[in-house]
């Protein structure tokens, strides 16, 4: 907890969430943990920002929500990718890849 987590670039959180729920329904805590684990702690998402993003994506109908039971037998809200969200994820991933390639090209020349 002593390292300062890498700040997320604007808009990156959305695509990470979409990707995370693309394998099946997950609740918010699960999503947060999954991102942390996958990036081995390189990316720490602020919980408040995560929940704001989840509700924003739900309103955009990219993800849908349903109440269910967590592993610990508690009532939890599960998020799942919708058809619309899957299309959105695809196009955002393409944008992200092009962006990453472009940035790397510049950085390597320098």
């Amino acid at each position, binding site marked *: 907890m002593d390292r300062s987590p890498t700040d997320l670039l604007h808009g990156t959180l959305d695509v990470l969430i979409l990707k995370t729920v693309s394998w099946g329904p997950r609740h*918010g*805590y699960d999503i947060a943990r999954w991102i942390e684990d996958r990036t081995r702690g390189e990316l720490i998402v602020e*919980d*408040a920002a995560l*929940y704001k993003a989840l*509700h924003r994506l739900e*309103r955009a109908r990219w993800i849908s929500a349903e109440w269910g039971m*967590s592993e610990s037998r508690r*009532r939890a*809200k599960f998020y799942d990718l919708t058809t619309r969200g899957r299309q959105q994820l695809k196009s955002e991933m393409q944008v992200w890849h092009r962006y990453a390639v472009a940035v790397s090209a510049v950085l390597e020349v320098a």
Partner: protein
Amino acid sequence: MPNSNAFRRLFRFPRRSSDRIASDVDDELDFHLAMRAAEFRRQGLSESEAQAAARRRFGDVDDARLYCRTLDTSAERMTRRRDALGGVGQDLRFALRQLRRTPTFTIAAVVTLALGIGANVAIFSVVYRLILAPLPFPDGDRLVSFVRAMQGGEMTVSPGTEELRAMRDRARSLEWLAGFTDGDVVVDVARDPRIVRAVRIDPELPRLLSLPPLLGRTFSSEETEPNGPSVAILGHALWQSAFGGAADVLGRSIAVDGVSHTIVGVMPRDFDLLDRGRWVGGELWLPLLADDGQRGLSILGKLRTGVPLQTASSEASAIGQALTAGTEEDKFRAVLLPAKGELGEETRRMLVLLFGAVGVVLLIACANVASLLLARAVARAREISVRTALGAARGRIVRQMLTESVLLAAMGGTAGVAVAYWALQVIVAMRPESLSVLAGVRIEPVVLGWTAGISLLTGVAFGLVPAIAGTGSSFGDALRGLRGSTGTGGSRRLRSGLVVAEVALSVVLLVTAGLLVRTVRELGDKNLGFDPSGLVAARIMLPREAFPTAEERRAAMEQTMEAVSREPGMRSVTLALDVPPQTGVMFGDLQIDGAMSTGGKGVMVPFNAVRPEYFREMRMRITEGRTFERLEEPNVVLVSRAFAEHYWPGQSAIGRRLRMDDGEWSAVIGIADDVRSPGNTEEYFGSRQIYFPFEADRREAHLILRPRAAEAGTFARVVSAAAGVNPAIRIREYRTLESVVAEGRARERFTMALLSAFAITAVGLAALGLYGVIAYGVAQRTRELGVRLAMGAAPARVRRMVVWQGMQLAAAGLALGIVGAAAVGRAIEASLYEVGSADPFTYGTVVVVLTGVAILASWAPARRAAAIDVVTALRRD
């Protein structure tokens, strides 16, 4: 599952309130914080430290909470709005899919509705054309007809030239007034003489009605002089048929009654004139001659803007009275009537009957479809219960089912317009002469609006009951109901009630149609009082200018009869003033020898003037006394049986004397069979008839011919025979007596045919309804019937049981229907002739027919019931 998305939306979460949204957000965040705290606890922190760490790790909890709540609330609003809009389209798609899945149901419902709606649209189109349609002239509602009418307006006479002139000079409530008169002329085009309707018009009429000739010009005032140039304007149809629509027709000549006329114009296709609702469409137009003393004019006028008809009519009466004070004609008041005409009593009666009939057909159709939908709702009870249990709102399901029935109604309405289009063509083809205006009937936009209206109303009406009944049962009820052998009791009773109502309504229609059929049969040829078969009549006219004296007329008349009878192929010829059944009517004071006088009041007496052989030619029996001994036997008359019985009840009329007004007294020498006039049952047109001897010095009469065979050339030969006597003799209105009779009966036939068609439709629909209920009942009771058969019940017994069930419904409907029919029968008594409204024959036939139909309708399901496979039946479900 196909289209699972749409389906899932039907099971969507119930709507969330704002409180619910807030607590959902709280729960979600609390869960997260608890999970985080647990994570920290596992890393060794104490309970309170873990909670604090979780909050720190989260960031601004309250800010996130507020953000999420706001966002969710607005999302909920958006979803609701989208559901309301998208729901309709989604409902429609779902409904279409449901209808496609059950094609038999859909076709039955659509055909049923199409018949009901189609019949309504057709009759509404007729009513629209007869009552509501505006006249095709600018300011048509201000057009009036000027006539002289007896009190009550039943009997009218047409005014003459002097009155036209006086009204034109003095009436200030009228913009203009113009006369016309119509009659038949013989035109000779390429040696093919044909009778066409010619209308003599005021030269100004086309301009006044804003309908100028299509080609050429209208008449000039010089051409209205009695000795002016002979000119004619062709009607559109004659222009097409006789001249092939040639553009260079102007200036060519046409022989009208043997006189060459120069063609100066062609009228547009729609140029028709109006006289009290009678459309006068000329095939040939001639100038109305400006000579005095013409009678029998049709006079059309236009009210000044803002002047009420009543005011103008009072003014006309005052002017008319000043003209005729002290004369015979004063009995008739000068009045203005709407040119569009008022519906006669008989037309109104006909329309009420037909409107009632199509209303009943629509009711039956609706009951049928409601019954079908109800059966389906029961069949779908499980689907609905499942949906309700999964959280679909009841309102949502009712809406879905309503959508289905409105969609059905829309399909039915569309098919109904097609049915109506076809029905209108049939109606136009068989319209009676008196309703010639129906030729222009079509499905107007207004009528389409009416269709849309009744379709929608029908959809909502028959959709609502099953929709509510279908969702009324709670989850458990429906599942239990499905497992049981019968449908829910309530819906079965409702369907049975509907079928009973259907049968009852069709009984009412069938009885009404039956009574009218009987009336028309009673009025049939065998009861006319004479035999029209093989007879042909032609009017003979001797123009005043060519035959000024009685001697000349007598010679011409008798020689013509001679000449015609010498024509080959002519069996016999006689002369009479008029052709039955529509003869002339005298109006005046009838005095009966010793018995009575009608005093100053006057009566209508139909009369004819005939030669001695007339009764033999017409195959009329002289039941008492004799016919005339010789031509023009003085001071004797024959009367009809009805006349004799009315004026000399219980006594012999032979030798009694009578006279009209101040005429000579005549003795009754014979009594002839009554001649019935089929189109009219009114008193004065009844059969109380006087036959005077025919005097041959008349200007007009009818030749009644019996040609050996009905050949096309007979008319031409009669014309040429008459021309051989004197070219000035005119022969007109060449018609078979059978067609004259048929024309008089056309209205009854028309009403009867339409009513019968509707009654048959109604019975068919009721049979379909009965079949539906019985068949459905059998399907529902498959298990029970299977058990019965397994227990050894004979198939015949099961069959009887099912048929018996159908018979019970039919019997209830019959009983109710007979009560209703009795009431309707009394209401239509005025339209019946020689048939009591409680005619046992009609009722008997209806009972037999309906019983037969009911047996037929239940027979197929009964056979199916008896053939149920026991094993399958018991294994089902």
